[in-house]
């Protein structure tokens, strides 16, 4: 008896004819080779490509419109400097959004921790290093508090962080007495707090330490997300939390670590913001929460979780910076900057949806 008939006799009677069924590999009518379709596939495999392309195009476009003032090394480094704080916040936000969450409290954690660091170092005579460490620990604590509500009390991230945004904001107003800590006081008592405000010049470009910190934060988080098991788990949770749980990931523990880490990154942003702003103001970065989400969304990270690269958020933050700078140098009213960013968000999400449909 040949092998093939043997196999068939094992199966069910209604499967007897399976042997004679078509054997060739499925051939699909190749009608999907239009340029647009190929682009869609390419973007599906490389989600960061969209923000990179947009960034390059907008750089070239503003180079033409605004001329050499825009394309100078000084202006480009200025953009980097301007987006550094929001960029770091966007890195924290990306971590949360990849898990299919959202964090409305990132900027509140950041400002709260800068106030904690300032109060300790400037008014209470605590050594700067210790004050900064306390702020970092506070950032982790604030993040873990969000994470605890989300994983243990099972509250939705949106509601949780909407609540903690107010809580942290009220705390920072109370701790600061709604007063700024002046730059001169920081310089006199705790100049280390302004560490990230320092800069150096290379060929007309002024690189601040905060911009370097931003790039470092992105590189480290990119490594963690893509090269470690923890990172794969973060993506798996954002993709399908239940499936991740069933395939053996301790999802609550991983989520807690994500929120704690995001809090730490926010505290770093708080430290960097002291150098960037030059003082500690409780009113600063009030819109930082939404700005960070804007950068993440423009960077092609899906709000539904599990998709997109954290590097996208860096490009997203840079795109916002390039648009602001380019439009300003072109002499356009500030309101049109806001207008343009609004359209960028809508277009970014529309492109995300379009790319997703490729797999369906």
């Amino acid at each position, binding site marked *: 008896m040949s092998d093939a008939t043997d196999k068939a006799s094992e199966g069910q009677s209604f*499967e007897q004819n399976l042997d004679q069924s078509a054997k060739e590999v499925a051939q699909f009518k190749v009608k999907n080779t239009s340029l647009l379709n190929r682009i869609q596939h390419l973007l599906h495999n490389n989600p960061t490509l969209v923000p990179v392309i947009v960034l390059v195009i907008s750089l070239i476009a503003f180079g033409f419109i605004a001329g050499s003032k825009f394309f100078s090394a000084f202006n480009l480094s200025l953009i980097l400097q301007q987006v550094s704080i929001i960029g770091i916040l966007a890195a924290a936000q990306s971590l949360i959004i990849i898990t299919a969450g959202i964090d409305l409290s990132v900027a509140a954690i950041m400002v709260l921790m800068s106030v904690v660091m300032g109060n300790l170092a400037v008014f209470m005579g605590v050594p700067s290093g210790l004050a900064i460490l306390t702020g970092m620990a506070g950032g982790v604590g604030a993040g873990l508090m969000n994470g605890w509500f989300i994983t243990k009390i099972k509250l939705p991230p949106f509601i949780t962080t909407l609540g903690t945004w107010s809580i942290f904001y009220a705390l920072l107003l109370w701790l600061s007495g709604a007063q700024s800590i002046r730059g001169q006081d920081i310089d006199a008592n705790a100049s280390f707090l302004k560490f990230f405000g320092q800069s150096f010049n290379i060929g007309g470009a002024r690189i601040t330490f905060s911009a370097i910190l931003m790039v470092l934060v992105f590189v480290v988080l990119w490594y963690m997300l893509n090269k470690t098991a923890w990172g794969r788990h973060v993506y798996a949770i954002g993709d399908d939390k239940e499936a991740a749980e069933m*395939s053996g990931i301790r999802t609550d523990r991983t989520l807690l670590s994500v929120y704690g880490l995001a809090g730490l990154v926010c505290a770093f942003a708080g430290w960097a913001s002291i150098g960037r702003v030059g003082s500690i103001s409780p009113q600063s970065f009030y819109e930082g929460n939404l700005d960070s989400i804007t950068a993440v969304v423009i960077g092609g990270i899906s709000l539904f979780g599990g998709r997109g690269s954290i590097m996208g958020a860096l490009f997203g933050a840079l795109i916002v910076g390039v648009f602001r700078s380019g439009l300003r140098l072109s002499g356009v009213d500030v309101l049109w900057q806001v207008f343009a960013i609004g359209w960028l968000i809508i277009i970014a999400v529309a492109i995300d949806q379009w790319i997703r449909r490729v797999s369906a």
Partner: protein
Amino acid sequence: MTNPVVKASGIVKRYGHVTAIDHSDFELYPGEILAVIGDNGAGKSSIVKAICGATIPDEGEILIEGKKVNFTSPIDARDMGIEIVYQNLALSPALSIADNMFTGREIRKEGFLGKFLRMLDKPAMETFAREKLTELGLMTVQSIKQPVETLSGGQRQGVAVARAAAFATKFIIMDEPTAALGVKESRKVLELMKDVKARGIPIILISHNMPHVFEVADRIHVHRLGKRLCTIDPKDYTMSDAVAFMTGAKEPPAEITA
């Protein structure tokens, strides 16, 4: 008779006033495929969940290879070499086949990179995943790095089975593995099951598909009203007998009742 791989006795699980498992027994022997059948709500999923730690029974005792176990989660069971193929497969669609095979037990690089930077050894994981898929005759996918969402239903099932087969040392539980598949894909999964059994790993199969159950099972555990009604040999009974027992249309003969 050989010692059972799993021996559960007097398992009870109550949810409020509902008794999902009512003093049920359960045995799985080495090298066999044991099918668990029962009507909807009979509690066949509950008893299997109790064995793999997904639910914690209120009473009763579970012995695995003669040793008493108290699992508190499926992860405990997994650490002992018990693998589960869930009906929804528990795969992460956006991650690659290799990533999915290793979720929760990734391989890290040797030395400094792995120990301190915790870097994954992706080449090793990809090679292993490719080997396992090829062993089971599943290497029709284009690339081991391709996301699971680009695979067909049968291929996804194949990945889930390959994952279980690769890591199981005690036994595998399969929950309705052919429910969502076409005729050809079902055939493939049934062949996979026989293949896994031939390697000496016993399988617990939960299924509603009588032809599939009667084809692959060595014994059939019939669950009714929260407990084991009887265990039948598919060679001695017909499908209609089995359905009659599980729906209560017919009483099983006294010598096989549990």
